[in-house]
Every structure is written in structure tokens, then in C-alpha cells.
């Protein structure tokens, strides 16, 4: 393997597993950040995604316009807003999932750790391995639980101990205890909430540093939702999470930062274009928003 000479390799292997102490450090970080006042500059946060003036097009139709927002490391960033406001479309920019849709393109600049994600040299396949995704409806492969988790690392050329990796991923997704005796059984046989955690384990297994979640709880009951939310709070110590949600309480409960999207209807053509109205710390968005539209939405007067 040509990559074996890569200096990153050493760091990689050293980094896993993370020590308990390291986690404790993070524990306080984001909550403090929320409590800080808006004007205080933040220097300690590392930017994962630097989104600058990004617009989405389907052919000539502009679905999302002029989004600018930074996504920070080890935070949960929530995207909220009414239906059809382009949250999901925007989310799928971040791991180039929109490349799969015919006629879809973006304008603007989208930097991931300083690298232009849409650089012609960049391969979306490699992007998606580093930036995992969890979908609205749990969609495990119609294969065994083990194979569900192992598929990603296998195709990525992982040659280490696969059993350990599968166990570790299922542990992190808080699913191990429930499935450890039936790893060979089909992932489809699990309950909805378990399926969704299996999908999270599957996303974790490729060792990403970001997890994108597209309304991960919308198909789940309240108890399963609660478990996923707890899991997200756990996961953010290792990963950065961007979540699209319809559920404002969920955004308020779990996220550190919230972007409020809305939809603008073009007067002549009737075209509906989504855009970001306000992006700030979650507490600010929910308690002291600066835009009237945000306030109307979070107080339930609209949408």
C-alpha cells in the first residue's frame, strides 16, 4: 500500500481508542460555549466545514441560495425550518450526496478542513467515507448485522481486525449489548430504533470525523428518539454532527448551534428557494433571535 508511508497513519492508530480523560475535557466545552454571549469571539473552536455563499441548483431551478455558515468540530449543528426550505438539500452538499442527483450542481465555496470539497481532484467516494450519513428512514442493508457494519471498512481497504472494528462501532452506537448474540441475523429484523442505531454504527465504522443526520428520528417513537438523542450527545465528543430536524425541541435539546432555514417564494415564477435566515448558538436562536422570522417560527407562530 502506497499509503503506508503517510505520516497521518501513525497518528491515526495512536488516536484510537480515545482515552476517557480526553472525553471529560470536551464535556464542558460546548455547553460553556452556548452560555457565552453572542458578541464574545470564539477562537477555541476548530472549523470543520466552512460554507461560503453556497447555492444549490437543479438544472435552472435554484433550490437553496447563498448559505454561509461555519460548522465547528465536536459540536452538534442543527438545521431547522419549515418543509421544503432546503435543509436536506443543503445537508447533502456536505458529503456530496447531491452528486447522485441528475442535473444537481452547487455554486459557492465549501471548504472541509480547508480543502475545497468540490475541487475536481476530490472524489466524492472518499468524501463520503470521511463524512458519514444517517438517513431519515432507517435503511440497513438486507444483510446480516455484522455485514452491515463491516461493508464500509471492507471496501475502504481496512485490513485490521474486522471483528474488533464491528464490535467497537456497535458499542459506540449503543447497540452492542442488544445484538452481540445475533450478529449473523438480518439487520432488517431489528426494531426501527435499533435499525437506526445500526445505521449509525455503519456510519461510524468507516472512521469518519463528521456524521450527517437527516431527520434521523422522524420515523421513530419517542423512546427510540430519546435513545438516539442521548447517543448523539455521546457521539459529539468524537465526531462533529450536523442534523436536520423538523422537531424544534430536539434541536433545542441536543444542538450547540442552530441554523434556521426558510423558504422564499419568488413572486413572478412561484419558485421556492430555501435560504438561511439566522445562524447562531442554539440558545440564542431559541431565546433571543435577531430575526423576526426566526422568532415566529420558534415560538410556533409559523410553520
Amino acid at each position, binding site marked *: 500500500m502506497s499509503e*503506508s508511508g503517510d505520516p497521518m497513519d501513525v497518528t491515526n492508530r495512536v488516536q484510537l481508542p480515545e482515552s476517557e480523560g480526553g472525553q471529560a475535557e470536551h464535556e464542558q466545552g460546548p455547553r460553556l460555549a452556548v452560555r457565552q454571549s453572542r458578541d464574545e469571539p470564539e477562537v477555541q473552536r*476548530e472549523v470543520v466545514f466552512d460554507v461560503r455563499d453556497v447555492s444549490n441548483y437543479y438544472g435552472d431551478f435554484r433550490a437553496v441560495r447563498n448559505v454561509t455558515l461555519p460548522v465547528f468540530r465536536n459540536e452538534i449543528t442543527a438545521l431547522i425550518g419549515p418543509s421544503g426550505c432546503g435543509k436536506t438539500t443543503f445537508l447533502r452538499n456536505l458529503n456530496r450526496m447531491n452528486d447522485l442527483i441528475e442535473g444537481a450542481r452547487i455554486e459557492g465555496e465549501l471548504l472541509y478542513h480547508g480543502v*475545497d470539497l468540490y475541487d475536481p481532484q476530490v*472524489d466524492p467516494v*472518499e468524501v463520503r467515507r470521511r463524512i458519514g450519513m444517517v438517513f431519515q428512514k432507517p435503511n440497513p442493508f438486507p444483510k446480516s448485522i455484522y455485514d452491515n457494519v463491516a461493508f464500509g471498512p471492507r471496501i475502504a481497504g481496512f485490513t*485490521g481486525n474486522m471483528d474488533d472494528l464491528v464490535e467497537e462501532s456497535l458499542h459506540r452506537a449503543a447497540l452492542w449489548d442488544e445484538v452481540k448474540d445475533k450478529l449473523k441475523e438480518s439487520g432488517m429484523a431489528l426494531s426501527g430504533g435499533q435499525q437506526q442505531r445500526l445505521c449509525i454504527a455503519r456510519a461510524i465504522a468507516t472512521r469518519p470525523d463528521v456524521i450527517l443526520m437527516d431527520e434521523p428520528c422522524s420515523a421513530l417513537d419517542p423512546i427510540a428518539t430519546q435513545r438516539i438523542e442521548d447517543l448523539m450527545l455521546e457521539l459529539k465528543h468524537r465526531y462533529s454532527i450536523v442534523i436536520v430536524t423538523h422537531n424544534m425541541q430536539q434541536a433545542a435539546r441536543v444542538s450547540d448551534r442552530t441554523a434556521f432555514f426558510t423558504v422564499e417564494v419568488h413572486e413572478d415564477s412561484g419558485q421556492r428557494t430555501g435560504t438561511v435566515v439566522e445562524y447562531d448558538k442554539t440558545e440564542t436562536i431559541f431565546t433571543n433571535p435577531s430575526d423576526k422570522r426566526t422568532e415566529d417560527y420558534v415560538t410556533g407562530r409559523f410553520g
Partner: protein
Amino acid sequence: MAGVSIEARPAGTSLSVSDLRLKMGRRRREGVVRRVFFAAALVSVLINVLIVVTLFDGTWDFLSRVELRLLWTDGWFPRRDMYDIRTIVAGTMVVAVVAMVVATPLGLGAAVYLAEYASRRARRWLKPILEVLAGIPSVVMGFFALIWISPNIMQSFFDAGLFSLGAAGIGVGILITPLVASVAEDAMFAVPGSLREASYGLGARKRATTIRVVFPAAVSGIVAALILGISRAIGETLVVAIAAGGTGGSLFTIDPRQQGQTMTAAMTALATGSDQVKGATLAFPSLFFVGALLFFMTLGLNVMSERFVRRVRKSY
């Protein structure tokens, strides 16, 4: 190797574009696979081109050597250099008309029954049986047309001989009935239930609803089914080659009780004797001329049928 790491991005290191490139081997494999599949898809285009080239080349060969007045004479007798197009086109038309006379009521009746009347359980039984009928090889239907249809229908009711265009036409009609039924049923199935409910709401009975509401709404698909049936009937070979007679050639006729020659049967007859006649006359190249005629007739019908099918898809 102690495990290739696939870690995304550890803290404190910087990422570069080259980290987000796919490994060479995987990228190359992807390109190769894609090209292989693309080539497989292109084969269809190649085949089409070859068919057209073949037909044009043979037709040109034939037309440049034949005396044009021989294309308009008393009958189709290639061994005597008589290539009356009217004869084989008329024979084809007779077979197609007889076939549609059989297949239209049977196919549409079956389709309406399956789509509007049959219970779900009945459908589960009846459809596979129709599919079995659709799977009967045409050579088998040809034999059946000769030993059963001909004596029991054409000879006893219509005073025809053992071989007749009519017997072949009935056989072809039965053969295309499942096709007509299935395309028409698809069209009626696509008619939204709300239309039917609206009709029942106005107090219409099932029959009125079927004839006045469902049928008109599905008419494009039904027309498509019939056109497709005609196209198949024209291209059907074996039933005609076995049951229509006229293997040595035929005089012009439009009487279904007579022996006759269709385009496809003429081609079979030419081919089974082509070894002997090759070079001596124009019989062999005439094969390609007839083939071209057949190809463009069915092509036209198929394109027309597809237009109608697309119209159904657009409206619902």
C-alpha cells in the same frame, strides 16, 4: 501489514486535496467497469446499425438488378422472377386483419374482465394462465392452426382448403391475444380509482362506468395495445409458414379462404430453398428486400404504439 488505517482526520493534522482522492486501484477499476458496461449497452446500437445496413445493402442489390415491372405482376413466384409486392403485402394484411378480428374482442374482453371485474384471487390464477398462452412457441401454434383450426373452423364453416390465410390468421390472433390483453389491462389499471368512484357516485352501474369512463380514459393505451398486436401479427412467421400454404409462390388474393403468401412466409420459403436458387435468379436478394419492407412497417407501427403509451403516462 499491521492494518491500513482508514481514519478520517485526526486532530491537529491538516488535510489536503490528495487525501480526498480515491486510491489509484479503486479509481482505475471503477473506470474499467464503467467502460465495460457502456460497451455492453452500445452493442444494441451496433446491432441496429448492422440490421439497417444489411437490409439496405441487400435491397439495393435486389432493386438495382431486378426489372421494376416484375415488382407489379400477377403473383409472387420468385423462382420465375415474379416479385409482385402486392401479393405478399395483401396476404400479410389478410392475416393481420383476421388476427385482429380474433384478438381484439378476446384480448380486450379479457383485459376489461381482469382489470374491472375479476377478484384479486381470480386475477392471481387467470394472469399466469394467460402468460402460459403467451409463452407457446409460434411453431406450435402453426401446427395447431393446421391440424385443428383449419379442419374445425376454416374447412367446416368457411369451405376453405386445408391451407388457408384464414386459418393462419386465427392462429396468429390467438397468439397475440395475451399481448393485447396485457398491454390494454395495464392501461386500464392506470386509470385512477377516483374516476370510477366519481362515476359510481353519480349512480352509474359497473357496465356504464367501464364503457363510458374507464374505457375512454384508457383509450390511448388500448389503441397502443391494438397497434402492437398488428405489428406482431405482421411479423409473425411460423404460423403462416405452416398453415397458410403457398410455399411455391402465390397469385394475388385477398380471400382468407385461399392459400396465400405473406411477407414472412415468403421469406421462409425463399430461405428453405435458397441453397439451390442462390445466384441463378434474384430470389435470394429479394429476401432482403422483403425483410426491409417488413422491418420498416413494424418499426412504424411500434413507434406509433409507443406514442400512444406515452400519452397514457403523461395524463396520469
